[in-house]
């Protein structure tokens, strides 16, 4: 069997979560796509270093984290806006927990997020739909809804916090709470 065929299975299984991880840390969609491609190429070149006793997802996220830091140094933070270096580890651990959401595929895991949308208030749901589905900036949402920029930000931030809590409630009971809960801030 061609090693590429084997690698393809891993790429297909982990591409969704890896891309979400990159999208959470890097603003520019083009940079996300470049990092996505580069991460799997580096993984392919270094496959002999992968410890098969460990899950593949955290290993590729580790590669992605190093690449993000390299890009950040190369391009400068002003141009592409990356997540702060010290936050990437926390983010990686949080995604590790998201990996345990119910569902075999990334799409099925996203079903949990879709279902959690019903737990939001109307204003939160509307702000999230306008921002993520229709691509509107906070200022544009504020104009459309006739509310302040700050109110839009609050709706988005509270909505995202509610979605996080809801998804956490779907995790298996033996999964440790995310570091985001350890301070009891939500």
């Amino acid at each position, binding site marked *: 069997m061609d090693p590429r065929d084997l690698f393809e299975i891993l790429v297909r299984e982990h591409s969704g979560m890896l891309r*979400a991880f990159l999208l959470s840390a890097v603003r520019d969609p083009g940079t996300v796509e470049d990092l996505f491609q580069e991460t799997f190429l580096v993984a392919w070149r270094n496959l002999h270093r992968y410890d098969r006793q460990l899950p593949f997802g955290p290993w590729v996220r580790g590669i992605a984290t190093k690449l993000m830091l390299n890009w950040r140094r190369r391009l400068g933070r002003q141009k592409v806006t990356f*997540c702060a270096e010290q936050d990437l580890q926390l*983010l990686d651990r949080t995604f590790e927990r998201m990996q345990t959401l119910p569902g075999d595929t990334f*799409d099925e895991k996203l079903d949990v997020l879709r279902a959690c949308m019903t737990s939001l208030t109307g204003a939160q749901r509307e702000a999230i739909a306008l921002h993520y589905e229709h691509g509107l900036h906070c200022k544009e949402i504020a104009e459309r809804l006739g509310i302040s920029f*700050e109110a839009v930000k609050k709706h988005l*931030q509270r909505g*995202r916090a509610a979605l*996080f809590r809801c998804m956490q409630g779907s995790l298996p009971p033996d999964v440790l709470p995310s570091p985001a809960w350890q301070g009891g*801030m939500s």
Partner: protein
Amino acid sequence: MTIERPEDRFGDRDETLADGPVEPAPDAARPWLTEQRCVHGLLRALHTADAAAREARVQAVLAKIAAPRYRVLARLPGLAAAAALVALGVYLAWPDPDRLPRAEAMVSRALHALEEPIDRDFTLHVDVERGERHIEREWAITIRPGRRFLVEGESPFGRFRAGCDGELVWFQPMPGIRGMDVPLAEARRLTERFGEVLDLGYLDLDALLRRLPQDTELRCVGREGPGIRVEAIGTVNLPHLALRSISMLVDDRSGMLSEVRAVATGAGRSGEVEARLFYRHVGDRELGEGAYERPW
């Protein structure tokens, strides 16, 4: 008593909603910012999760690891064994260097090449059969990512220009006059007025390529010089024409489309119309996005 929520304390440190970099976050803000970022990434993924783009991404990775630079790495000691471990002990065979690449991977490479922010020049030869009549046209097509394209050619009125800047489709029947324009979503209103064989569906090469893996069965049929011939078996239905017998030559080194041939059929005003399309890549330029805007 007012309870201060995390977003009240740390909302300004949330980069995901800021226009640019923000002040470094204090340690106390990090857990909250992490959960915000995590959901932000999942929501972005949720709303950009179309199957075609996902498949193109995977194919782009596979095409790159098939390139010689990466294939050499598969011969490094240890990697074959490690890959075998990943595959739970399945035996690994060397890739055959003469084997044709996967057709989906070639289409994916062509898409990737078209995504580069430069301007690609093609000639488009259109050979129309309408009953007993036979008409030939040749247009110069320039395309750029973001659904931008320019078309230039001769019409009964002189040299016409048409284009799309990603939002607006415009048509100028001759230089120096004010033409017509419509939003991209309503382009059919405009194209229907200019012959029976003009269809945005094939002028937007990027969108056309994205549809091929879903709408057709792809296969690589052989090498032609530096290119690989890919055929799409099936029909792609465009706004008012149907494309079939699509055949592409993709440069094996650059991934660029060297040529595209297809047969377009549809119902014209005076009966069935059939057009043979032949795209040929003639070069690249750096025009910039402004070149695609309406000239008046």
